């Protein structure tokens, strides 16, 4: 604890007041409105809304496509991180900067662009449909949009770990006669798992709530390609505020559970590391 002489620094009261007031007004009070609104529903009514067939289908699409997109990035995210950290090639700095494009590009722009590319008359859609693959206006299109949106999470969580990886373990493995593939698979990959999983959790949580990039390409057919955030706006358009709130609570519970699992995972990894060091 360095708290003793810290008290010399000014601004505790001011910043505490500013933070609590701002946080309360902007974040906590509005979120409390969710609880207030859902309390106006009875338990039975709440249950009926959140387990309606259309709602269940929307969770299936949302969670399913988010998981599928996360799995695609589970492969390509670490691959990109590896290539960016370990290989030298012309344009590396450009590719490295471009990884953050999905963070910087407004989601609506991503949405209409991916739709134009993957629609039947788009350059990619034409080729894919010639092979019988329809992407736009199907759950496949939702997955493509979510792959785009959540890619940076996987790359950016693995990249720093690779940059700080000590070379001696790899060298030891090579000295002991392990082939390069064996070294990568048995020595490097295991050290990356915590970072990969935490990137996956962040990507998944983001993908659950994603709206702008998805709605253009999704087709938005109830029961087939309607995501849960869209169901919320559909209910709002019909002034069904209580129904929208109920679905929102389920979606929020999904994101929070994902992030809680992530925190537990990090706690577990830190414990194991410190136990290993002791």
């Amino acid at each position, binding site marked *: 604890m360095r708290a003793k002489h810290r008290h010399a*620094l000014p601004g*505790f009261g001011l910043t505490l007041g500013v933070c609590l007031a701002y946080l309360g007004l*902007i974040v906590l009070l509005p979120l409390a409105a969710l609880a207030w609104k859902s309390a106006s529903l009875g338990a039975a009514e709440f249950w009926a809304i959140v387990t309606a067939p259309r709602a269940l289908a929307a969770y299936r699409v949302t969670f399913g496509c988010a998981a599928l997109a996360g799995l695609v990035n589970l492969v390509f995210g670490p691959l990109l991180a590896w290539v960016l950290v370990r290989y030298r090639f012309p344009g590396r700095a450009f590719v490295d900067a471009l990884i953050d494009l999905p963070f910087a590009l407004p*989601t609506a722009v991503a949405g209409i662009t991916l739709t134009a590319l993957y629609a039947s008359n788009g350059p990619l859609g034409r080729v894919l449909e010639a092979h019988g693959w329809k992407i736009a206006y199907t759950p496949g299109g939702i997955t493509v949009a979510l792959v785009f949106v959540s890619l940076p999470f996987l790359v950016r969580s693995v990249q720093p770990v690779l940059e700080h990886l000590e070379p001696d373990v790899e060298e030891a*493995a090579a000295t002991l006669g392990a082939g390069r593939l064996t070294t990568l698979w048995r020595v490097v990959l295991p050290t990356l798992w915590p970072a990969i999983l935490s990137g996956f959790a962040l990507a998944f949580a983001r993908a659950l*709530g994603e709206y702008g990039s998805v709605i253009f390409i999704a087709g938005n057919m109830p029961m087939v390609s309607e995501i849960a*955030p869209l169901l919320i706006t559909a209910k709002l358009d019909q002034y069904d505020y209580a129904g929208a709130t109920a679905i929102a609570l389920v979606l929020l519970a999904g*994101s929070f559970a994902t992030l809680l699992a992530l925190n537990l995972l990090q706690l577990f990894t830190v414990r194991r590391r410190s136990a290993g060091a002791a």
Partner: protein
Amino acid sequence: MSARPASNALRDPWWLRLPLLLLALAFVALFLVLPLVAVFGYAFEKGVDFYLASLADEDARAAIRLTLLVAAIAVPANTLFGIAAAWLITRFSFPGRGLLLSLIDLPFAVSPVIAGLIYVLLFGAQGLFAPWLAAHDVKIIFAVPGIVLATIFVTFPFVARELIPLMQAQGSEQEQAAITLGAGGFAMFWRVVLPKIGWGLAYGVILCNARAIGEFGAVSVVSGHIRGLTNTMPLHVEILYNEYQRTAAFAVASLLALLALATLALKQLVGWRMRRATQAENPP
């Protein structure tokens, strides 16, 4: 970037390196480069004159003005909060500090649609404060204040998140010294703290601004889509696209894509300056 010793044990053999590199580049080309190029390709598919006319359109200009206005309120508000929160969390220890830290991150875990919904529940026609708002003739939902609030919510954590780890790592020795030497609180802030955190602050502000301008879901729920009045640029893109005015939609979208490119470039620049600053402080 750290230069690595060219130890053979750390180098992948060519038969592994080549396919991995090609696979990674193909993925980047398909998922990142192609969409970026396509935005501009579609924006100019009917020529430069049509492009300029789409941007000069009355509704497009109103959307651009509104978007800039919203960002001009939301970004400074969250910047001031971010600085205050980072100072509080990294310079004092108090009960509830950990909780405060997680609450600051909370908006990132909330779907943009839900961020819009919560303000509708508070200020909408059936909302908690509806009677009071009606009595005082104040309009928040389907009006500019709602758009500002929803934007502040979704961009809430950006500045604080960049500053907290930075200020934690920097420590407070210089501030302690300034106070001991008799500097007042604000003098210390302007002369000592601000120069120290400058690049990190710039980084957070850039990210916050990009999201504030590009936000779609949250703003879409609270805006009401009134042309010329409550349409931001992303919402205007949506309306044009749904009205089959694809080229005009991409013309406005290309401005947003330019902003994204500028954001990425600034981010690289600031990241590079930050690394140089830390290297200057503790040389290897």
